[in-house]
């Protein structure tokens, strides 16, 4: 397993301690959003929130192209889904004029309706104003005006094969199917990846006009046919900022790495401790080292408790492309902690050393200033945390 050449410092789009940039954590929860502004040392954090108290916020993302625009994917228990946009880092918000929505179905046909927008990804650096949104049920949407109006990406949403693989609202996770991990190649705005739970990993070379599955090597639940794209369940896919030809994936069935141009994923999670396994939701990658990535395993045995394994939460890191893994639990609860870290709720900043952040289903926000060597609780008593982003406002 060859180690990848490390990129020159500064290639990452994330924050850098040496540059004096500060980290702001964008925390999306079941009952609102919070921003936590860190000091230069990432020791103290100022809570800013709640924003949208009572709204179900799936994702809050900063636009790295201007360092101040935020998009938030929202709905409430009563109200349908929408997108809010802030041009001043959350001081004021404005609702999208046309949120993600499927086209009206022909008379007599059962049309699809967006239940919630689950995932937001800023477009390429050369395309300011462009963003992608992944929804539940599965749908990909794009805006070219900074999030005010969204159009369906028909090349995916209406492709007959994809409609079949996507299934209906009943075919996904317990909280509905999720289209997630929309990735824009930093070298090419037309080159996209995405994941569908369930429904596989897919690639487009033409800005979403057409797509092809990228599931070779990925395993499916025992007894099912891996040649059926619908059975593949990627939980989180990441691209290395230091080497965009390297992809990492935390799947329902293991941890994987893919080095392009290969199309075959390698299950690198086999080397995780057998008592822990390689099942989980989130995965994050090092901003400058393509061989380093972190996961936060969960219990995927029997009835799938999806809690920390044995009630002992821990991150695991590989620093050699997945050949070996090391447990990182110092400071985390030593026992009887049964929370879960969802797929969007783990983040890495661009600092040196890298800061790591984990949000839990019990509303706790944990941080590490030293790449996971030591953890401390940054906030508790928040609502269930759905997503954490480590942003670097300009």
């Amino acid at each position, binding site marked *: 397993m060859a180690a990848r050449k490390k990129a020159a410092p500064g290639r990452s789009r994330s924050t850098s301690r040496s540059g004096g940039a500060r980290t702001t954590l964008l925390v999306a929860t079941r009952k609102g959003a919070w921003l936590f502004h860190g000091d230069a040392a990432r020791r103290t954090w100022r809570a800013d929130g709640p924003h949208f108290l009572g709204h179900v916020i799936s994702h809050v993302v900063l636009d790295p192209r201007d360092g101040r625009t935020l998009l938030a994917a929202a709905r*409430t*228990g*009563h*109200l*349908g889904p*929408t997108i809010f946009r802030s041009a001043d880092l959350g001081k004021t918000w404005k*609702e*999208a*004029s046309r*949120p993600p*929505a*499927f*086209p*009206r*179905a022909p008379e007599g046909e*059962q*049309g*699809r*309706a*967006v239940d919630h927008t689950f995932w937001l990804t800023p477009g390429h650096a050369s395309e300011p104003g462009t963003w992608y949104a992944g929804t539940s049920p599965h749908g990909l949407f794009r805006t070219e005006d900074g999030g005010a109006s969204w159009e369906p990406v028909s090349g995916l949403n209406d492709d007959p094969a994809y409609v079949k693989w996507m299934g209906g609202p009943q075919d996904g996770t317990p909280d509905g199917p999720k289209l997630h991990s929309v990735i824009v190649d930093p070298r090419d705005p037309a080159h996209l990846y995405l994941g569908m739970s369930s429904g596989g990993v897919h690639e487009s070379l033409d800005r979403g006009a057409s797509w092809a599955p990228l599931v070779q090597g990925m395993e499916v639940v025992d007894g099912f046919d891996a040649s059926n794209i619908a059975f593949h369940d990627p939980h989180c896919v990441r691209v290395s900022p230091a080497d965009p030809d390297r992809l990492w994936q935390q799947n329902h069935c293991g941890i994987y790495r893919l080095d392009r141009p290969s199309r075959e994923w390698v299950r690198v999670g086999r080397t995780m401790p057998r008592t822990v396994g390689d099942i989980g939701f989130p995965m994050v990658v090092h901003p400058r080292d393509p061989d380093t990535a972190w996961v936060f395993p969960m219990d995927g045995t029997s009835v799938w408790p999806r809690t920390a394994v044995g009630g002992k939460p821990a991150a695991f890191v590989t620093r050699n492309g997945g050949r070996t893994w090391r447990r990182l639990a110092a400071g985390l609860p030593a026992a009887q902690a049964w929370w879960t870290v969802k797929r969007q709720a783990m983040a890495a900043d661009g600092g040196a050393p890298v800061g790591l952040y984990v949000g839990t289903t019990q509303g706790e926000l944990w941080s590490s200033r030293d790449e996971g060597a030591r953890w401390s609780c940054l906030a508790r008593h928040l609502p269930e945390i759905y997503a954490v982003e480590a942003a670097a406002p300009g």
Partner: protein
Amino acid sequence: MEVLIPTPLRSYTGARLVDASGATLAEVLADLDRRWPGLRFRMIDEQDRVRPHIRFFVDGEQTFDLGRPVRPGESLQIVQALSGG
């Protein structure tokens, strides 16, 4: 007609009671959306289905029919029903 706006939608209207016009429930909702853009989509999905926790009462009678005629003097109550923590 007079329309009772539930609390989750008052960030749009700023008022508990508003006036709207139309010959059908659909037209009344369209009129509300003209005045407060985005409000309709929070209640009605892109396939013109009433969202699960939204209820409309015209003169006290529950209806799911957006084509239901409304007559002068009738009122519309929009109710949002949600349970759980």
